[in-house]
């Protein structure tokens, strides 16, 4: 009798896949910080970072090196373990989402069919929702453990903002689920890829808008970056943080952005579907690579829109933010759900 009966090949395959996806996300996040500065520069009519390397392409590495080389300061009155746990949690929660995103169809290597998705679980989108709701702990624990009034205020703001917008997000999601009839992201993408089927955004334009706004609020992006409103709260929940722990907080925002873009692409824009092309006519490996490229293109477009909005719209006031969440988005999402349900019932001829 063996001690452990595990399919080792499957384990190795999944581990390699996890490593590739995590490092790819981190790499993209690295360059997203660079893209953010460049986009800001273009929108404000200035050159932006252009000193490190050709076109300033080495800038993110210079920034990262700077953060790592800085002195690590832990306030003496801080709760030490939780102070370190905070940024770690923020980063973990941001990266955990990638487990259920279908990055493409399958590739065939060494006579094995490898799905380019870490786990196709039957509750896929709920898992994303659960992880997102855990992301707020990183902010809360970090803000509280710093033992600083401003950090605590910012952490509480962040938590209440996240909870408020999660509600509208969940309700807008329900309308999508009613159309697809499945919680698995893979099934949802497959449905949108089927010939003669439009992307979900065509059936759920209002739902997509609500989801997009909520995703922006969940990522703490301007105009929803109240937790780090520097003119009211000095610097926000990560005020006491320095060195790479601060870097983790800043970085997790970008990872969150990539993941929410990937989720939006999968839910509403056909995931790795290439428009006007029947992928089944291609060889599976080529289709898989093209699929990854298509999904990445969609993600990049979403990230650009995120940045565009950030550098165009000023920050909300806190009461405006709460009013938008509770009095506009939630009723709209409920209305959207009701209309979708009525429409489905009518189509079924009930």
């Amino acid at each position: 009798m063996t001690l452990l009966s595990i399919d080792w090949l499957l384990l190795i395959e999944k581990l390699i896949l996890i490593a590739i996806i995590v490092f790819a996300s981190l790499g993209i996040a690295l360059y997203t910080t660079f893209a953010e500065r460049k986009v800001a520069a273009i929108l404000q009519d200035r050159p932006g970072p252009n000193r490190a390397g050709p076109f300033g392409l080495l800038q993110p590495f210079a920034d990262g090196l700077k953060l790592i080389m800085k002195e690590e300061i832990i306030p003496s009155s801080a709760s030490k373990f939780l102070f370190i746990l905070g940024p770690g949690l923020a980063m973990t929660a941001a990266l955990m989402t990638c487990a259920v995103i279908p990055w493409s169809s399958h590739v065939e290597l060494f006579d094995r069919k490898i799905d380019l998705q870490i786990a196709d679980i039957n509750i896929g989108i709920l898992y994303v929702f659960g992880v997102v709701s855990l992301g707020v702990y990183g902010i809360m624990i970090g803000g509280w453990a710093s033992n600083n009034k401003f950090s605590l205020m910012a952490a509480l703001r962040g938590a209440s903002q996240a909870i408020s917008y999660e509600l509208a997000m969940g309700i807008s999601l329900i309308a999508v689920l009613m159309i697809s009839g499945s919680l698995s992201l893979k099934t949802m993408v497959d449905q949108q890829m089927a010939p003669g089927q439009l992307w979900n955004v065509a059936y759920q334009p209002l739902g997509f808008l609500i989801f997009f706004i909520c995703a922006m609020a969940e990522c703490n992006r301007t105009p929803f970056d109240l937790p780090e409103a520097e003119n009211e709260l000095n610097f926000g929940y990560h005020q006491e943080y320095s060195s790479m722990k601060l870097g983790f907080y800043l970085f997790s925002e970008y990872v969150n952005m990539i993941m929410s873009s990937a989720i939006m692409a999968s839910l509403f824009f056909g995931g790795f579907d290439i428009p006007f092309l029947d992928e089944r006519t291609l060889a599976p490996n080529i289709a898989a690579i093209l699929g990854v490229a298509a999904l990445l293109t969609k993600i990049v477009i979403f990230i650009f829109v995120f940045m565009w909005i950030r550098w165009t719209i000023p920050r909300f006031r806190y009461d405006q933010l709460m009013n938008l969440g509770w009095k506009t988005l939630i009723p709209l999402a409920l209305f959207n759900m009701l209309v979708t349900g009525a429409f489905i019932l009518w189509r079924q001829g009930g």
Partner: protein
Amino acid sequence: MSTTEILFFFLSALALFSAIMVVLSKNPVHSVLWLIAVFFSISGHYILLNAQFLAIVNLIVYAGAIMVLFLFVIMLMNLNAESEPQKHLWMKLAGVVSGGCFFLVLVSLVRQAADMTDKMALMGDGNIGLIKNLGKALFTDFVVPFEITSVLFLSAMVGAVVIGKKE
């Protein structure tokens, strides 16, 4: 020992240890964080029973929403270990007595469950916990209790708004 058994024992140990730490921690914030760890390990048990929906809903509702509000209140009230008021002796005594009563009930429950011995839980199969079967059961066999619960929730929500609106 199969992987499932290893996971079961690991999760059980984690759940018990975290639960004990919830009680033993001096700092209320630490207690809340240990309680979140308990919810995680219980969700792990649900997954072992192939009840994925229950597992994730347990996480979303308890760890994701209720515990955030707990943390919220504790942080706002600034209940630190130092500022916690010392409790009276008779308060501690009452706690011991009520805790002991609860323990008695638990022990009698476990003893009564003698017919459960030699029975194995369905690990990894059994699909009543999957969302499709659960939804069907809720909306056909148990539709009346389900709807009554939703009315209860609605009245609780209205009550919360009324209390919140009171100046």
